[in-house]
């Protein structure tokens, strides 16, 4: 873990802000990330059906294991190809 000192006036939180949510999903590319827990595919399959019916382009991704963070290459690929990502687990 590397630590740096905040060079700012510390008026903003140190965490990065999320991008604003899009107003609508039609015509956008949504990534569905299965974290590899059992039956996650059930909820994601249904989500894909609903999204496609709304005119959304859907790409599917899967983490190798739910026990670890997504590999950097996978995160990079999702960031490159998708405008929105839905990460889902189901137990």
């Amino acid at each position, binding site marked *: *873990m*590397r*630590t*740096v*000192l*905040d*060079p*700012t*006036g*510390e*008026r903003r939180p*140190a965490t*990065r802000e999320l991008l604003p949510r899009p107003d609508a999903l039609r015509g956008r590319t949504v990534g569905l990330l299965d974290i590899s827990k059992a039956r996650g595919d059930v909820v994601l399959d249904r989500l894909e059906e609903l999204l496609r019916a709304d005119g959304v382009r859907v790409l599917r991704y899967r983490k190798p294991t739910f026990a670890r*963070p997504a590999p*950097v290459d996978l995160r990079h690929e999702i960031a490159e190809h998708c405008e929105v990502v839905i990460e889902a687990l189901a137990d």
Partner: protein
Amino acid sequence: MQLPDGLVAVVKRDCPTCTLVEPVLRGLGAAVWCQDDPDWFDGDDTGLELSYRLGIETVPTVLRVEGGRETGRVVGWSREQWEGLTGAAGLGPGLPDHRPGCGSLSVDPSRVDELEARYGDGLASRRVALADLEDEHEALFDRGWTDGLPVVPPTPERVLRMLRGTTRDPREVVAVVPPDLVACTVEKVAVNAVMAGCLPEYLPVVLAAVEAACAEEFALHGLLATTYFSGPVVVVNGPVARRVGMNSGVNCLGQGNRANATIGRALQLVVRNVGGGRPGEVDRATLGNPGKYTSCFAEREEDSPFAPLAADRGVPGDAVTVFAGAGVQPVVDQLSRDPESLARSLAACLRVNAHPKLPMAFDAMLVVSPEHGRVLREAGWDRARLLAELDGLLRLPAGELVRGAGGMAEGLPPGVEAEQLPKFRPGGLLVTHAGGDAGLFSAIIGGWVSGETGSVPVTREVRG
């Protein structure tokens, strides 16, 4: 941590005196911590936390502890002192009477910054942990802390090292920085100076520049917010400039000198990060100028026809002067060998500052090079004489300045009663001396809106 009562010692296996006194320490039943070998004695201080907290400078150090508090201390080996501390007699019978110790690892220059960062209580800035998968350089860009060029990551160790460049308290407030009007401490300046690439010895100059740029009359908020080109230009005077390796000579307004480049950049990073003045947000410059990355040089005081700029402005010795500069315009005159002719060339070029038809609207800084300076020096012209001559040459006929004159809409509104108007307000033209030995050129650094409605140059002492 709570120290055990009795005798406590800190040793290092690499120290011959420590190995010499090993049997004595064991015989005394002291609680011994070792700095470089966790298995030598019971106590492991390879992390050096205990050594740091106890302020150990020499090994061996033996402490007497009563009720958890230190009541006595000896360093190195001295039979007499050890017997005095422990109350035992006849210690180390085969040993010499006296043997000096070795340096403690906790004061080793390569370790002390890390220890101070970890165990000291000196730094107040929020600590930001970077994730393992983050590239540390990209992480700093991502957080919006840079000017677009790479910065040195401001680790606590580096910031502590930077703070050794000044005797000032890290918590002392240097200035209130626009536009967010944030009280900026010496420590925050140091954080940004690290990022800019400064060495610790530059820090006093950076602190003075921040102080000067945040003075009310410099109007930093407006300077930042303006659509105009300008940003702070820092001119350094006094022995400090040479001592820290600043450039006042060849290419001094250009690239390549670390002190010039990073001192000016540190000021800009303070404005950006502490003050919140970011381009495209409060900074609304239409075009800007490359000097908004950094603009800083030292005045060439040797062989100058002029007294040092800061001294002429009432601050002799080490000082900075900040000026709201908008970029460098060349003045070429390779033929004038008398000051009258040279002054006319300088005046002709100064007249177009911002616009040839706008008088008293924009300040300027004239940077006279050594070859032009020689012409003035040999004729005995000092700064006041040159300014007086330029003032006479820069009286502009009002008829040439009114709107529409010369087929240009820009100009003064009708109704100007005076026949002539000065190009510069009183005090609106600064004159400095800098540059390489060769070249019959000088430079005009155009200024910004001047005087009470704009920015007034500010000079401040550089303090240690």
